């Protein structure tokens, strides 16, 4: 095992220990995040000139899936943090303020949260109501942020808003807001079926008199297309893979237990295990293929911004989210009551409830509708090893 995998395993061991309590109490996975900080994993992607490790999404994805096997909540917190960091790294390098911020993230292991979702807009990332109001080098912003995961625990929040009060809904910017610069008034409580420890409460967010240097210079349209879409779909999928993988591990252990009890016979559930291991492999292949394609085009703004690439990423999200749910459900069917019950070595209630969030996290129909628009111009004819 390489050094990074070992660091991820150590953090995952801590996460696993507290995963049931985090879920039951709907509380932030504080121990796991402390372990991630102790392993210095929050600065993984930050370039080395800013005291990070300059890792790519492939390495981050591996950590996401390791954590996902232990605690979905800790894994999703880690994924969401690195999705935001990916945008800072891709688009913050020509802004002195954001370079300094990256240095702080790596050195102080700051945790970054995201506020895109807004009351009345839902998961339409590319539309905002709220607007930045700038004057004399400072700006203010008020946002009805209906979902901010770990909003209270984060050290900073990256929020979308319209560029100015007269801008179109899609003419957005991304602003970095440090926790001690903003007021957060809780407007809704995250009491959910699963992913309970992400603490994705709703907030009224208020920021006043902050330097305009904190607004990322690139339009959010560019940030979304060039870094956020890829990072979100690749890292979320890696978390879901981790959840599905752990569920199949439990099903396998169950079937092997049966086999040991009845030597010379293949338990009937082994057939279902063969089937689900097949689906798990297809899920892994889809994610790995997308990561490889991402690495192939990295740094090529034209290729990342191309229609074919956006379609590929959208397809990954809808496919991976549905397959992960399917896999955990099938694992449960194999394990039966021992999986349905809490507190057995084969319990699958928590991962099932957690993974059910996958198709909703930016609704799959919304994503399919976006893909449908892109397909209006794509001409097709792709080859096995390319498009």
């Amino acid at each position, binding site marked *: 095992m390489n050094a990074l995998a070992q660091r991820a395993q150590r953090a995952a061991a801590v996460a696993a220990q507290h995963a049931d309590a985090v879920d039951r109490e709907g509380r932030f996975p504080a121990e796991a995040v402390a372990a991630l900080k102790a392993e210095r994993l929050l600065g993984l992607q930050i370039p080395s000139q800013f005291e990070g490790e300059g890792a790519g999404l492939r390495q981050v994805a591996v950590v996401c899936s390791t954590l996902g096997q232990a605690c979905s909540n800790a894994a999703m917190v880690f994924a969401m943090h690195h999705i935001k960091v990916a945008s800072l790294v891709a688009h913050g390098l020509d802004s002195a303020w954001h370079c300094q911020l990256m240095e702080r993230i790596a050195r102080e292991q700051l945790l970054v949260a995201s506020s895109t979702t807004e009351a009345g807009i839902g998961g339409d990332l*590319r539309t905002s109501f709220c607007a930045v109001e700038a004057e004399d080098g400072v700006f203010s912003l008020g946002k009805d942020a209906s979902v901010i995961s770990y909003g209270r625990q984060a050290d900073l929040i990256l929020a979308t808003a319209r*560029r100015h009060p007269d*801008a*179109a*809904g*899609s*003419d*957005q910017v991304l602003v970095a807001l440090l926790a001690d610069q903003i007021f957060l008034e809780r407007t809704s409580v995250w009491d959910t079926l699963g992913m309970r420890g992400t603490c994705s409460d709703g907030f009224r967010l208020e920021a006043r008199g902050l330097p305009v240097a904190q607004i990322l210079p*690139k*339009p959010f*349209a*560019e940030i*979304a*297309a060039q870094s956020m879409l890829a990072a979100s779909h690749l890292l979320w999928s890696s978390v879901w893979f981790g959840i599905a993988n752990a569920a199949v591990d439990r099903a396998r252990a169950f079937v092997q237990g049966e086999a040991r009890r009845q030597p010379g016979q293949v338990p009937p559930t082994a057939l279902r295990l063969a089937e689900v291991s097949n689906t798990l492999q297809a899920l892994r292949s889809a994610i790995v293929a997308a990561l490889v394609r991402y690495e192939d085009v990295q740094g090529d*703004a*034209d*290729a990342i*911004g*191309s*229609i*074919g690439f*956006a379609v590929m990423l959208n397809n990954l999200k809808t496919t991976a989210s549905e397959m992960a749910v399917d896999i955990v459900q099938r694992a449960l069917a194999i394990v039966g009551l021992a999986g349905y019950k809490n507190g057995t070595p084969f319990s699958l209630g928590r991962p099932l409830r957690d993974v059910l969030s996958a198709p909703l996290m930016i609704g799959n129909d919304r994503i399919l509708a*976006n893909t449908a*628009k*892109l397909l*209006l*111009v*794509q*001409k*097709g*004819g792709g080859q096995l090893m390319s*498009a």
Partner: protein
Amino acid sequence: MVTSDDIRTILGSNEALAPVAQQIAEDDSLFDRGLDSFGSVQLMLALEERFGIEFPDEFLTRRSFSTIRAIRETVSAVLQSVAA
């Protein structure tokens, strides 16, 4: 013949670009002005319809639709290949 004003007229039907379409210079980045992937799909469809052409996949890149000049060159190239 494709003129920059033909293209500005088409840009005027994009939500983000509409208010500024007439002021966009030849080499201004449309993406920096807020054009996103869906906006560019709409733009491609409008251009295909207006000029009676179909852009092959290799033309469907960001660069081909990044500025008014790039669009003019892209459309001209497709028109020429159709004529040839």
